[in-house]
């Protein structure tokens, strides 16, 4: 069977409703969300964060963000002996001995008095409110924490390892060198010193506004030579590293809401992105096949089986294959010209006895031995018996370029073979002192897996199995980038040192330290360039990736949040295989089943579920030690005879075989107990693969995992008492983890567990209990109420649309100056909430309004999902939004060449377009600027005579939008290039015909008609709907969730409470009906309506109640376009394309085909030529070439000249053809 076998973990499909603790109640928040800050009335408010609060609290001046307390920088120095093999991993720290049970017991006693410590666990049978673990989890992990953890790991651990691996710069002169001693990253600050020689700290908001980079200095301690002396220096800056927001380096880390407000930051903002040159950039999570693991694939058609390993070390990334050809096994690798028979490869590595080979690969199994026979025979037929013979066989087949060793010595044939086998093949298995034994065993294991797959097709691995994947995060990518640029930096400095030292005479003693600071631009620009372009091009590591970073979408709060959980996969989008796109059963709980885009990237772009965490590297040496202590026998002491005996299991740590054990189950059990006791990192996973008969221990980074409640003896370890303590705030999630109540499982270990979804499903065999079923959904899908009642594609549609909804973006939304920002004027939190909504904070930054909907037909303007809007609702502010746009201008002010300046237009220039321009050449906030009115009057110097006053040419920046806009803000600042001016313009829009709306169930529609309130139907309480929706939207879409949302919403409205529509739970329909009945409504949610037009009662009852509606960003005003005549493209003289260029409306090929088919020649002629690019020209009838002015330049006469009209594009084609030595001729005929 594969390593992704059918789940041994029978996670039953979630059984909704019944047993879940209802999450209703406790909902007392008000219906209308407090709009964070209302845009509108006073548009020109400069950011004044929390001025009043700080004023009130103390008499001292308001705290400024510019002087945050200086945090001690990380400075624990790793051991100098950090060897290469282990330097990926953080140092082994002594595990904290935790009190575990005693700790709880003490807490219980203090909370409940002298109750015996043991009793508490048995006190309650069922766990109430175990979902409360989720918010506790989200406090410490989850959503964006993986980005932060990964970045922190890079900054604190990995960067030091990289430094120690490249610690010495040795110039050619042996007396001059620089040695790096330690490295640390400071706090974010402006590069260079201030005008009064001070360091200016940077806040993210300043960076956004001033288009600068939020970065911190990378500082090193060095030891270096000055002439004959050795000197030391501390905190030498070698470059600036962009800082991830809310990481350990960031000012925003662990700040209170008030502190954040002072810095102009939103407390709801997730962080985890970078601010580079003023734009917010996210490094998306990248999905890859795991490195250093064996993956077996089969090609059924060619009858080939291949085992593949991607070895990833610090020097190189190489792939090694063991493949079959004609049922013989070969070793394939890039450094060999042709596949090498496996037996020859093994013999070359010193495994000369056939018997030993057979034992290592096949063990006792005769089936395997038989299948391996041909491979053995082949080696014999090649006359390769001894190690020397085999090395020579391999040596002549090593591809060119490997004939020399590191010092440049020429190698003999068998040395070449030895070198490439040691260093290139399976590079991650290190060969020390020419001990090839570990590599032989690894290769033999690969061969064994291939044989197994040959004999049994089901032993092939599943590449799409989530357990075989690793997620690469920002930290890993940055560490690669840093390693690459640091090497470049060091070699540049070495070159400079050599150059300076080679100079005959030096005026001053050579100080190599100054070189370090001189060249810090190399490191700084490498980071800034890579993050701002998204191109990760690292020649050293064969990494060539584009589109790694994306601009953080600030369309809505949810869009930004959704971006932080997004995973992009490396598969090409064009391939027509469904495997990578399909929903994998192993994605359960790890990746959101609903949130994926439609179309091209469907299934390739995924999103993390709510409770997932991505691991970072954990050192493996202590794990190996633990394994040996638990009775694993070292593999290097084994012969093949002992490896594959029945009942014996191999033990692998991070893909590397360390030994065997005969007591697999008890070994795994003990190991897990140690992990639960906190003796190893909680992210170490261990599981048995019964098909491979291997115990895998994994501690590498990039595994997806999630927490689960441990079940022992059919009892959940977490009890109601624990939850009570949690709710009282006495304990945190870490307490649960440390005392072995909850643990993290990765996908592979999940497969080795029996997990109960609900407590009543626990059987004696159950090992774990889900914390909460709704966490299988992600943050974006979690917004949907009652998603378990919807057809699944509808939830997927909503995931895409939720990101386009206009709403509140952040508490600091009005201080931001973004290129484009949509804000809703009066956002409301939904009447029907979900737990996820509360957890991610969507109720505080909502994107939509609770509209009262009548599901009925009205007029004919509601067909095809069109909505009818109530004019009075629109007047009251339903769907009203702001559109804020930015115009940026940098005044270039270099001393040579062009210089810009702002000026008041000199006399005579001013016309109506300059109505609001002040003396400083800028408009002021509050002004209404019409299309093509001037906003910034800039003047550029055209020529500057030596010493004289340059001539100034006006180059104003005007309003390019077709509608009048209000000026919201005018900001002036400065950058390195010069003065920076940003003008923020604002429009307030009310819904109009054609604007797009959507409910939270993938049901979008455009506004078809806006009806006066008096014509709308009303119920007997006089309530008039805001929206009328056509009932035809329901049958085919099957969005039952929407109907229940209406019912629950209505019950909420009449009872004055918010209702819950959490997935697999939420308020029950029965309860909702009862509430309706109690308040005198029909239990079904239907009302009797009276027509506003006729005044008669409608003949049927109408489903009537509130549904949360989102206004989507697609608005008619941005799209409406028509042109009678207008600009033409320069080259073809055809009308331009696109609304932004006032383009024409294209009569395309298909339309043309229709006209041809219909035979409307004159219409065709008019559309395609006369109204487009008609061109009067002259053609010579005799030679067929174009002429001019009654003259044919070829015939040198004007005899055959005829004038005619052709499309300019045709004339252009003729001339271009002539330009490439092809002579087209026009042959003329008389028209009839």
């Amino acid at each position, binding site marked *: 069977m594969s390593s992704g076998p059918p789940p041994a973990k029978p996670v039953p499909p979630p059984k909704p409703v019944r047993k879940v603790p209802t999450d209703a109640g406790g909902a007392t928040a008000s219906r209308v969300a407090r709009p964070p800050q209302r845009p509108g009335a*006073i*548009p*020109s*408010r*400069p*950011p*004044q964060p929390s*001025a009043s609060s700080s*004023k009130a609290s103390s*008499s*001292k*001046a*308001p705290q*400024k*963000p*510019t002087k945050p307390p200086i945090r001690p920088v990380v400075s624990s120095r790793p051991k100098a002996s950090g060897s290469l093999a282990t330097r990926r991993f953080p140092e082994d720290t002594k595990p904290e001995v935790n009190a575990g049970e005693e700790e709880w017991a003490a807490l219980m006693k203090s909370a409940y008095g002298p109750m015996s410590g043991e009793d508490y666990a048995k006190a309650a049978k069922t766990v109430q409110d175990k979902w409360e673990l989720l918010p506790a989890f989200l406090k410490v992990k989850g959503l964006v924490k993986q980005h932060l953890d990964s970045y922190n790991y890079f900054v604190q651990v990995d960067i030091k390892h990289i430094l120690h691996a490249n610690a010495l710069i040795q110039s050619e002169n042996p007396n001059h060198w620089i040695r790096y001693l330690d490295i640390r990253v400071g706090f974010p600050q402006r590069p260079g010193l*201030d*005008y009064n020689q001070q360091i*200016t700290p940077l806040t993210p908001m*300043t960076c956004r*506004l*001033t288009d600068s980079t939020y970065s911190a200095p990378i500082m090193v301690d060095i030891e270096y030579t000055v002439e004959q002396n050795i000197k030391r220096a501390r905190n030498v800056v070698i470059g600036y590293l962009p800082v991830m927001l809310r990481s350990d380096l960031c000012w925003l880390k662990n700040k209170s809401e008030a502190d954040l407000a002072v810095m102009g930051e939103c407390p709801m903002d997730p962080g985890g992105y970078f601010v580079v040159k003023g734009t917010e950039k996210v490094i998306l999570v990248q999905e890859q096949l795991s490195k250093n693991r064996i993956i077996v694939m089969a090609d059924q058609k060619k009858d080939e089986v291949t085992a593949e390993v991607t070895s990833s070390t610090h020097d190189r990334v190489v792939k090694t294959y063991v493949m079959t050809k004609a049922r013989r096994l070969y070793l394939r690798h890039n450094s060999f010209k042709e596949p090498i028979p496996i037996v020859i490869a093994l013999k070359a590595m010193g495994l000369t006895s056939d018997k030993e080979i057979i034992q290592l690969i096949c063990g006792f199994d005769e089936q395997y031995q038989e299948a391996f026979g041909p491979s053995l025979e082949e080696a014999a037929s090649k006359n390769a018996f001894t190690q020397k013979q085999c090395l020579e066989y391999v040596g002549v087949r090593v591809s060119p370029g490997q004939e020399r060793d590191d010092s440049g010595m020429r190698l003999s044939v068998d040395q070449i073979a030895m070198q490439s086998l040691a260093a290139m093949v399976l590079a991650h298995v290190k060969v020390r002192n020419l001990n090839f034994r570990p590599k032989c065993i690894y290769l033999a294991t690969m061969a064994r897996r291939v044989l197994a797959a040959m004999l049994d097709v089901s032993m092939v691995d599943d590449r799409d199995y989530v357990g075989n994947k690793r997620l690469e995060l920002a930290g890993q990518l940055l560490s690669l980038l840093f390693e690459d640029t640091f090497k470049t930096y060091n070699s540049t400095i070495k070159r400079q040192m050599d150059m300076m030292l080679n100079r005959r005479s030096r005026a001053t003693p050579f100080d190599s330290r100054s070189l370090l600071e001189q060249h810090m631009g190399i490191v700084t620009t490498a980071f800034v360039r890579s993050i701002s372009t998204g191109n990760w091009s690292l020649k050293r590591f064969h990494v060539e990736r584009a589109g790694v970073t994306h601009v953080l979408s600030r369309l809505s709060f949810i869009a930004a949040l959704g971006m932080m959980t997004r995973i992009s996969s490396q598969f090409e989008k064009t391939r027509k295989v469904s495997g990578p796109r399909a929903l994998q059963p192993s994605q359960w709980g790890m990746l959101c089943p609903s949130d994926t885009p439609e179309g091209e990237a469907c299934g390739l772009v995924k999103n993390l579920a709510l409770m997932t965490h991505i691991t970072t590297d954990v050192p493996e040496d202590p794990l190996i030690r633990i394994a040996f202590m638990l009775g694993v026998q070292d593999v290097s002491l084994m012969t093949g005879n002992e490896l594959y005996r029945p009942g014996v299991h191999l033990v692998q740590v991070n893909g590397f075989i360390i030994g065997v054990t005969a007591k697999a189950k008890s070994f795994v059990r003990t190991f897990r107990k140690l992990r639960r006791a906190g003796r190893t990192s909680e992210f170490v996973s261990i599981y048995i693969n019964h098909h491979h008969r291997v115990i895998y221990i994994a501690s590498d980074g990039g595994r997806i995992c999630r927490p689960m409640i441990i079940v022992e003896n059919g009892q959940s370890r977490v009890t109601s008492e624990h939850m009570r303590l949690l709710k009282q705030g006495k304990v945190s999630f870490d307490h649960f983890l440390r005392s072995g109540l909850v643990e993290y499982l990765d996908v592979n270990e999940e497969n080795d567990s029996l997990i109960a979804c609900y407590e009543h499903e626990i059987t004696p065999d159950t090992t774990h209990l889900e914390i909460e079923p709704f966490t299988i959904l992600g943050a974006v899908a979690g917004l949907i109420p009652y998603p378990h009642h919807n057809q699944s594609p509808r939830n997927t549609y909503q995931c895409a649309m939720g990101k386009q909804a206009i709403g509140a973006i952040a508490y600091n939304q009005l201080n931001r100056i973004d290129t484009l920002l949509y804000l809703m004027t009066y956002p409301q939190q939904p009447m029907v909430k979900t737990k996820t909504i509360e957890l991610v904070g969507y109720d505080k930054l909502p994107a939509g309004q609770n509209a009262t909907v009548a599901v009925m037909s009205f007029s004919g303007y509601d067909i095809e999902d069109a909505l009818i809007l109530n004019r009075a609702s*629109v007047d009251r502010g339903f769907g009203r939004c702001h559109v804020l746009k930015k115009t940026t201008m940098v005044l270039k*002010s270099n001393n040579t060449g062009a210089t810009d*300046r*702002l000026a008041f237009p000199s006399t005579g220039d001013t016309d109506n377009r300059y*109505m*609001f321009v*002040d*003396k*400083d050449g*800028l*408009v*002021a*906030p*509050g*002004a*209404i600027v019409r299309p093509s009115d001037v906003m910034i009057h800039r003047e550029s110097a055209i020529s500057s005579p030596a010493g004289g006053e340059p001539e100034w040419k006006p180059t104003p920046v005007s309003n390019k939008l077709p509608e*009048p806009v209000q*000026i919201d*803000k*005018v*900001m*002036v*600042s*400065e950058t390195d290039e010069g*003065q920076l001016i940003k003008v923020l313009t604002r429009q*307030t829009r*009310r819904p*109009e015909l054609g604007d797009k709306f959507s409910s939270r169930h993938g049901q979008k529609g455009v506004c078809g008609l*806006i009806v006066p309130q008096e014509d709308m139907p009303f119920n007997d309480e006089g309530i008039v709907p805001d929206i009328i929706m056509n009932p035809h939207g329901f049958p085919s879409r099957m969005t039952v969730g929407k109907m229940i949302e209406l019912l629950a919403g209505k019950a909420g409205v009449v009872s004055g409470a918010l209702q819950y529509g959490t997935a697999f739970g939420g308020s029950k329909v029965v309860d909702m009906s009862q509430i309706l009945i109690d308040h005198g409504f029909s239990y079904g949610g239907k009302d009797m309506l009276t027509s506003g037009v006729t005044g008669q009662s409608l003949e049927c009852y109408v489903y009537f109640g509130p549904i949360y509606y989102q206004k989507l960003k697609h608005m008619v005003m941005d799209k409406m376009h028509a042109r009678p005549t207008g600009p033409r493209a320069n080259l073809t003289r055809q009308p331009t394309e696109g609304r932004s260029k006032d383009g024409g409306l294209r009569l395309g090929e298909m339309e043309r085909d229709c006209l041809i088919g219909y035979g409307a020649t004159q219409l065709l002629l008019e559309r395609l030529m006369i109204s487009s690019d008609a061109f009067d020209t002259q053609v010579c009838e005799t030679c067929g070439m174009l002429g001019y002015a009654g003259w044919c330049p070829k015939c040198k006469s004007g005899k055959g000249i005829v004038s005619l009209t052709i499309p300019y594009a045709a004339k252009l084609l003729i001339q271009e053809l002539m330009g490439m030595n092809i002579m087209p001729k026009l042959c003329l005929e008389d028209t009839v």
Partner: protein
Amino acid sequence: MSQQRYSQQNPNSMPNRDQPKAPEQIEYICGDCGAKTALKANEAIRCKECGHRVLYKPRTHRIVRIYPLEN
């Protein structure tokens, strides 16, 4: 800066009705402390009080006619 001065500087203060003309020298408002700074050409853009580099232009002095929204 002192508390007292800070409270006086309301960035959104409306101009007096009898002051329709824009002043010759425009005083920009600091994005951090709210102090007013008059800028000269070719001068570094800094708040005089706190050295902050982001300044905002105050609201216009002219009379703005607001066009009613239609539909």
